């Protein structure tokens, strides 16, 4: 007969409460891993959206995500003419805050030329931008309804399309608008500033500025060869898609990754200590029963099995409940929680290992209990 199961059934309420407590702890661990995955995926979603092979940026910078990069607006035409480049698109990136339905909304604004590279990877609802001014496509995370209007700078824009999973490295939803609108939003000074500059005799502001050019290459064209060609223009630099993704992950999310990794490691240690203490206490509660079992001739393997099985059951049930809870509440997190089955499976294995190791204290205690203790009266 399985003594572990019988003992659990005997104190089912207490055991389940313990599992629930552990599940919350493991749920936090899962959330941290999910937030990290979400962070990286979100960060990469922005750089992957144009599906480019090459990123052309201002020379000496690693822009447009890791550093500021500003180039003349005609750079796109120059890049498009380089042999091996199939298509190119100019893009701008900026962060704006605006009011929407009485709440402050922070958005990552991407300007691109409709019909060229740089727009959203896919439209989930509605359509893409069709005219040069006044239309935007925004991620559903912004909470803006299709057909609604949103004010950016001095103008109102009509939301014509919605995307999914287009957010910045900071978790802000991405809003796409035409390059001209984005340039005005970013580079056109306020009327008061404009009037002051004119009064000073300053030249009109140059708004035809972009942050990067994304290029798609002809099949069988080596990105490095095109990058070398572009590098001959001293004011331009370039990075392949893989390099840009690497820059983004290493420069922009590296600290967050380390932070979350450290938290996760600390939480795992805390979980291990908690599991060890629970198992130890459960064993302490059964000292007399264990002594009796030993006295009537139960082998050590029976005692060890009792403790190990309970530890594994607690870890397994706690992990299962934790996974369920996190899956249920993942969408309520301010940041995206991306739970990957491989991560969950890996954590499950780690939790089981931790349970086995943590039960060592309880097993040690149990093996030290003398059968004579049962005769103590």
């Amino acid at each position, binding site marked *: *007969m399985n003594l572990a199961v019988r003992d659990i059934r005997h*104190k089912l309420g207490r055991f389940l409460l313990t599992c629930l407590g552990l599940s919350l702890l493991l749920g936090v661990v899962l959330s941290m891993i999910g937030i990290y995955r979400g962070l990286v995926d979100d960060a990469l979603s922005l750089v992957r959206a144009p599906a480019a092979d090459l990123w052309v940026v201002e020379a000496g910078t690693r822009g447009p995500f890791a550093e500021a990069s500003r180039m003349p607006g005609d750079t796109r035409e120059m890049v498009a003419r380089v042999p091996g480049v199939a298509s190119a698109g100019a893009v701008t990136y900026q962060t704006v805050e605006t009011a929407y339905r009485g709440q402050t909304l922070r958005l990552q604004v991407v300007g691109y030329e409709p019909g060229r590279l740089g727009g959203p990877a896919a439209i989930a609802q509605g359509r893409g931008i069709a005219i040069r001014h006044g239309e935007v496509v925004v991620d559903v995370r912004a909470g803006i309804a299709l057909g609604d209007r949103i004010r950016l700078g001095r103008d109102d824009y009509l939301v014509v399309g919605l995307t999914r999973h287009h957010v910045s490295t900071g978790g802000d939803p991405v809003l796409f608008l035409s390059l001209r609108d984005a340039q005005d939003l970013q580079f056109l000074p306020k009327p008061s500033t404009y009037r002051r500059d004119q009064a000073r005799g300053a030249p009109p502001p140059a708004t035809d500025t972009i942050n990067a050019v994304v290029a798609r290459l002809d099949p069988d064209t080596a990105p490095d060869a095109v990058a070398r060609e572009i590098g001959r223009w001293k004011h331009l630099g370039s990075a392949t898609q893989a390099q840009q993704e690497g820059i983004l992950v290493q420069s922009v999310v590296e600290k967050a990754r380390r932070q979350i990794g450290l938290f996760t490691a600390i939480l795992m240690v805390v979980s291990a200590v908690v599991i060890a203490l629970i198992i130890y206490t459960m064993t302490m509660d059964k000292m*007399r029963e264990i002594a*009796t079992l030993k*006295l*009537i*001739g139960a082998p050590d393997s029976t005692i060890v099995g009792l403790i190990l099985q309970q530890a594994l059951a607690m870890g397994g049930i706690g992990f299962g409940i934790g996974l369920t809870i996190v899956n249920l509440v993942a969408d309520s997190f301010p940041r995206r929680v991306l739970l990957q089955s491989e991560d969950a499976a890996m954590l499950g294995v780690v939790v089981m290992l931790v349970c086995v190791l943590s039960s060592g204290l309880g097993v040690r205690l149990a093996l030290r209990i003398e059968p004579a203790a*049962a*005769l103590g*009266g």
Partner: protein
Amino acid sequence: MDDLRPLAELTGIAKHYGEGGSRVDALRDVDLSLFPGEVVGLLGPSGSGKSTLLNIIGCVIEPSGGRMVLDGTMIYDGHPTGGDLRRLRLDKIGFIFQFHNLLPFLDSRDNVAIVLELAGQGRFAARQRADELLDYLEVGNRSRSAPAKLSGGEAQRVAIARALANRPRLILADEPTAALDTQRAAIVMDLLRKVAREQAAAVLVVTHDEKIFDRFDRMLRVRDGRLEAGSA
């Protein structure tokens, strides 16, 4: 009974704790033979060495000196003989405790069956034998009850059923009637006498309970670690 071979034979058994100035002699030069079918009472004040003697005969602790044979198996001969004492306890010794020590997470039947399963019997056979024993001890109607739901007398009878499960040759009882009233104590002692006769087992009962003195075939008294014949 003198013509029978003793089930337990202790010769010159000693037990001490500590060494030098802190040495405490719990038992000194104890000779004891327990024969099949007899119920022996072991009396003595607290700290006299009763429990130590019970633990030694029950193969729970090792003596410091002397010689001990259990059912023909040499257990100690001036030094441990290296036998599997756990298996010996499982197969040949039944224990009855003052507070029954039933496992709270098993019902009465499984508290008995576990001993049989530990000895290698299948679950069905073990439960069948457990039911027979519980019926024999007139607690068959409580076979599915948890220990917490049993009265003191019922729990002690289930504990006796557990002690008898593997048909032990030696039954060691530590204050089995201390928590029972006179009537129930008498029932328990009569059961032990019955088992001793029917299964040719030796029963050694450590007790202070004067109301059961008349149920013993003979009584022994431990005083300052020495064993002497007692009287009821």
